C-alpha cells in the first residue's frame, strides 16, 4: 500500500510537470499566431478603420515598410511584446492593402554584432599578416542614421538597479522614388495611435507632394542681449510647429513681412493672432483666403493676470484684463464672423496655479516664501464634452478643452446668408456664460450675473465654408510696415476676380495652442492636428486618428447625486446580500 502511494506521488508529480509543459507549449504556440480577435468596442477602435482600405487602394506601387527593432531579449520588459504587436498591426495593413503594403523586420543589433565579429577577425588576420587591411565601409549604425533611424535610450532594471538600454524601434516607409519617411521612435505607449502614424505617412507619400503649411508668427527674433549668451527668446508656438512637422507637414513659418512673405505654394495657413496686425498683413491674409488657401485662425482678445487681492479678505484673488488690441476683426467681419471684444466668462472653469508670497519672521530675519495656490476664475474656461460637436470630424473625439482666457465668436447671419456661407459650430461655452466690459486696469468683476442673465451656449470654435468676400477686392495693396503708409506701387498682385471656394476654422483663443498649455493637454494637440488635417487633407485621416480610445465623460452631478451613486454602487448590493442571508436563515429556521 505504501509503495502504491509512493508510486502514485511520483507518477502524479511527473504527470503534473508534463501537463504543465503541454499547457505552456499550447499557450506559447498560440501566442505567436495571429489567430483572430473580436473587437467589442463601440467604434471598433482596435480594428483597422474603413478609411485605411480607401487610402491604401490609391497606392500605385507597393509600399515597403521596414521595422528596425532590437531583438526582444535586448528589450526592457515593458517593451518585450512591442515587436509582436507592431508586426500584428503591419500584418493587418498588409491584408487590408491586398498585398500592396509589404513589410520586413530587421534587427540592427544582430548586424552590429556581426560587424564587430568580422572586425575582430580581420584585426587578428591583419596582426598575423594573413590578410591586408579591408577597405573601409560604412557601419550599419551610420547607414541607418542617414535614414533617420537611430537607437534611443529606455529605462530598464538590471540587478535591482535602474539602467538605460539603447534600443532600436523605428519604422521606415519606402514608396517609389519618394524620400523615405521615418517614424523614429515606436514606443509601447504610442501603440494606440500607430495605425494613424503609419497611414498618415502613407497618405502623404502617395500625395504628389508633401503638404505645405504656413504658420504665423515666425520664431521671435533674437535680440542682441540674448545673442551675447547664445540664448534665444521663448517661442510660444514652437511645440505647435513641431507637432505639425512630426505629422508630416512641411511647415514654413512667416511673420508676413516684406522680407518674410507667405510662401505661394502652401495649402493651409495657420494664424495665431495675439497682437495687432499691420494693414499689409491683413491684406496678405485676405489675398490668401481669396485664392483658396485654407485658414486655421486663433485670435486672443485678452490675457488676464490673476493675483492675490490687495484689499479684502485674505485668500481672495483678483483678475486684471490685459487687452491684446488685435484688429483681425476688420477682416473677419467680411467672412461672416468675428471674435467678440467683450470679456467672456463661463461658470465651467478650470484651475490655474497662482504664485502667492508670504513674509515670515525668523528671529531677527524676515524671509519671503513663495507658494502656489489653485485658483478657479470664470475666465479660465473649460469646455466639456457635452459642448463639443462630435458630429464634425474636426472636433471628433475631443473630450475637453481649456479655452484659456478665450472669447466667444459672433456669427453674422445676414453676411453668412448673403454670401451663401455655411457655418458649423465646433464647440460652445456652457449654458452659464456671460460677458462683461473691460474696465481698463481695474480688477474685473468676476461675479456671476442673475440666473436669468446667463448666455446660453455661445460659439467658441467654428468652421465656415463657402466663397468669402475679400475686404481688399480690387484695392491697391497697402505698403509694408516700415515703408510708411499709403499704397504699395510695386508689382504686388491685386485681389481681383471671383474668389475660390474655401474653408476657415476659427477659434477665439490662441492660448490653447501655446507651448505651456499644448504640452499639458492632449486634446489641444488633437484639435490643432484635426483642424490642419481636415483643411489640408480631408476627413479620412481624422477618422483614423479619432479611433483612439475616447474618454467618455459623465454628466455634471450634484452633491446629492454623488452620494446617491456611491450608496447605490457600494452599499446597496452589500445590503442585498445581507437581506438574502437573513431571509435564507429565517427560512431554514422555520423549516
Amino acid at each position, binding site marked *: 500500500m505504501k509503495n502504491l502511494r509512493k508510486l502514485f506521488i511520483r507518477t502524479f508529480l511527473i504527470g503534473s510537470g508534463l501537463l504543465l509543459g503541454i499547457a505552456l507549449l499550447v499557450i506559447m504556440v498560440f501566442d505567436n499566431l495571429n489567430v483572430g480577435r473580436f473587437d467589442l468596442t463601440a467604434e471598433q477602435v482596435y480594428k483597422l478603420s474603413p478609411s485605411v482600405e480607401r487610402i491604401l487602394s490609391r497606392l500605385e506601387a507597393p509600399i515597403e515598410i521596414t521595422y528596425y527593432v532590437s531583438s526582444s531579449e535586448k528589450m526592457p520588459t515593458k517593451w518585450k511584446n512591442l515587436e509582436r504587436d507592431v508586426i500584428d498591426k503591419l500584418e493587418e495593413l498588409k491584408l487590408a492593402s491586398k498585398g500592396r503594403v509589404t513589410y520586413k523586420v530587421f534587427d540592427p543589433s544582430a548586424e552590429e554584432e556581426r560587424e564587430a565579429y568580422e572586425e575582430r577577425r580581420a584585426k587578428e588576420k591583419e596582426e598575423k599578416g594573413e590578410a591586408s587591411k579591408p577597405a573601409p565601409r560604412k557601419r550599419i549604425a551610420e547607414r541607418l542614421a542617414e535614414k533617420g533611424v537611430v537607437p534611443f535610450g529606455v529605462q530598464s532594471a538590471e540587478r535591482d538597479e535602474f539602467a538605460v538600454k539603447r534600443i532600436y524601434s523605428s519604422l521606415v516607409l519606402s514608396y517609389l522614388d519618394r524620400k523615405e519617411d521615418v517614424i523614429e521612435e515606436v514606443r509601447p505607449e504610442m501603440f494606440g495611435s500607430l495605425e494613424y502614424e503609419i497611414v498618415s505617412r502613407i497618405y502623404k507619400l502617395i500625395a504628389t507632394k508633401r503638404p505645405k503649411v504656413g504658420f504665423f508668427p515666425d520664431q521671435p527674433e533674437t535680440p542682441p542681449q540674448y545673442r551675447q549668451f547664445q540664448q534665444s527668446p521663448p517661442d510660444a508656438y514652437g511645440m505647435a510647429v513641431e507637432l505639425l512637422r512630426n505629422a508630416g507637414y512641411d511647415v514654413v513659418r512667416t511673420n508676413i513681412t516684406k522680407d518674410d512673405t507667405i510662401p505661394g505654394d502652401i495649402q493651409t495657413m495657420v494664424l495665431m493672432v495675439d497682437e495687432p496686425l499691420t494693414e499689409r498683413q491683413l491684406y496678405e491674409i485676405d489675398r490668401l483666403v481669396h485664392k483658396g488657401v485654407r485658414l486655421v485662425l486663433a485670435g486672443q482678445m485678452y490675457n488676464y493676470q490673476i493675483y492675490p487681492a490687495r484689499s479684502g479678505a485674505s485668500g481672495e484673488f483678483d483678475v486684471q484684463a490685459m487687452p491684446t488690441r488685435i484688429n483681425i476683426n476688420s477682416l473677419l467681419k467680411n467672412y461672416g464672423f468675428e471674435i467678440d471684444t467683450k470679456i467672456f466668462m463661463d461658470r465651467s472653469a478650470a484651475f490655474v496655479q497662482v504664485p502667492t508670497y508670504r513674509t515670515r519672521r525668523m528671529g531677527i530675519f524676515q524671509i519671503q516664501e513663495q507658494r502656489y495656490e489653485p485658483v478657479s476664475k470664470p475666465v479660465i474656461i473649460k469646455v466639456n464634452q457635452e459642448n463639443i460637436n462630435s458630429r464634425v470630424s474636426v472636433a471628433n473625439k475631443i473630450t475637453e478643452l481649456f479655452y484659456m482666457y478665450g472669447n466667444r465668436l459672433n456669427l453674422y447671419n445676414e453676411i453668412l446668408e448673403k454670401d451663401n456661407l455655411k457655418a458649423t459650430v465646433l464647440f460652445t461655452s456652457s449654458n452659464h456664460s456671460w460677458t462683461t466690459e473691460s474696465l481698463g486696469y481695474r480688477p474685473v468683476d468676476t461675479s456671476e450675473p442673475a440666473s436669468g442673465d446667463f448666455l446660453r451656449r455661445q460659439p467658441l470654435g467654428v468652421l465656415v465654408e463657402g466663397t468669402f468676400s475679400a475686404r481688399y477686392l480690387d484695392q491697391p495693396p497697402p505698403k509694408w510696415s516700415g515703408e510708411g503708409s499709403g499704397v504699395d506701387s510695386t508689382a504686388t498682385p491685386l485681389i481681383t476676380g471671383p474668389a475660390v471656394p474655401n474653408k476657415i476654422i476659427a477659434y477665439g483663443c490662441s492660448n490653447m495652442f501655446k507651448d505651456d498649455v499644448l504640452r499639458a493637454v492632449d486634446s489641444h494637440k488633437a484639435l490643432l492636428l484635426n483642424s490642419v488635417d481636415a483643411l489640408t487633407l480631408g476627413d479620412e485621416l481624422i477618422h483614423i486618428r479619432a479611433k483612439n480610445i475616447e*474618454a467618455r465623460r459623465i454628466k455634471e452631478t450634484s452633491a446629492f447625486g454623488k452620494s446617491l*451613486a456611491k450608496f447605490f454602487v457600494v452599499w446597496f448590493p*452589500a445590503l442585498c446580500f445581507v437581506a438574502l442571508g437573513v431571509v435564507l436563515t429565517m427560512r431554514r429556521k422555520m423549516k
Partner: protein
Amino acid sequence: MKDIWIIFKREFAAYFYSPIAYVFSIIFIVLNCGLYMFHFFFFGNADMRAFFSALPVTLALIFIPAISMRLWSEEKKLGTIELLLTLPMKAEHVVLGKYLAGLAFYLVALAGTLAIPIMLVFLGKPDFGPIIGGYFGAVLLGAFYLAVGIFISGFFADQIVSLIITSLVCGFFALIGWQYVPMVIDGWFPGLGDFLYSYVGVTRHFNDIARGVIDVRSLVYFLSLSALFITLNIKYLDGRKY
C-alpha cells in the same frame, strides 16, 4: 451529468448556509466597488477601467481563495471526503460539481458589482464593449483562479492554510503579469521574467479582454490553465483511492 448536478446543488446551497461566504462576498463588493467609487467623481470617466484593473489582485488575494478554501479542505477535516470518493461517482464529476458551484457563487457575487454599469448609464454614455469584455474577462479570471484554488484545497485539511497558499499562488500569477516584477526577475535571470510575463502572468491577458478585445490567445491561456488545474485535481483525487 446527473452526478455533477447533485454535487453542484449541494455545494451551491452550502455557500448560502455559511455566514463566512456572505462576509467575503460583502467584502468583495464593498472593497472593489468602494475602490472604484473612491476616485470616480474626480476623474469623471464613464468607464470601468479602474474597476477591472484592480480585479486580478483583489480576486487573487481575497475572494477566490475564500470561496475555494472549503471545497476540499472542509471535506477532509470532517472526514467526509472518503465517503464522497467511495460513492458510485466518478472523481471528475465530483470535482466538476464542486468547481461549478464555486464558479456559480462567484458569479452571484460578481453580479453585485453590476450596480456600476447601471450607475454609468444614468450618469453618462459608457461604451459597453469594454464593460462586457471586462465582465467576460472577470469570469475567465475567476474560473482560472478557482481552478487553482480547488486544486490547492485538495491538499490541505486546514481551510486557512488552503486560503493562504491559494492567495500566494494566485497572487504570483497576478503579480507576474505586472511589468515591474518580471523586469526585476529579468535583471537577475535574463529571459525568465520575460517568459513568465508573456506566457504565465494573468494580468496581460486579462487586460486585453478588459479593454474590449477578445483575443483567441487570451482565451487559450485561460482555458488551458483552468483545464490543467481541474485535471490535476481530478487526478490527485483519483490517486487518493490508493
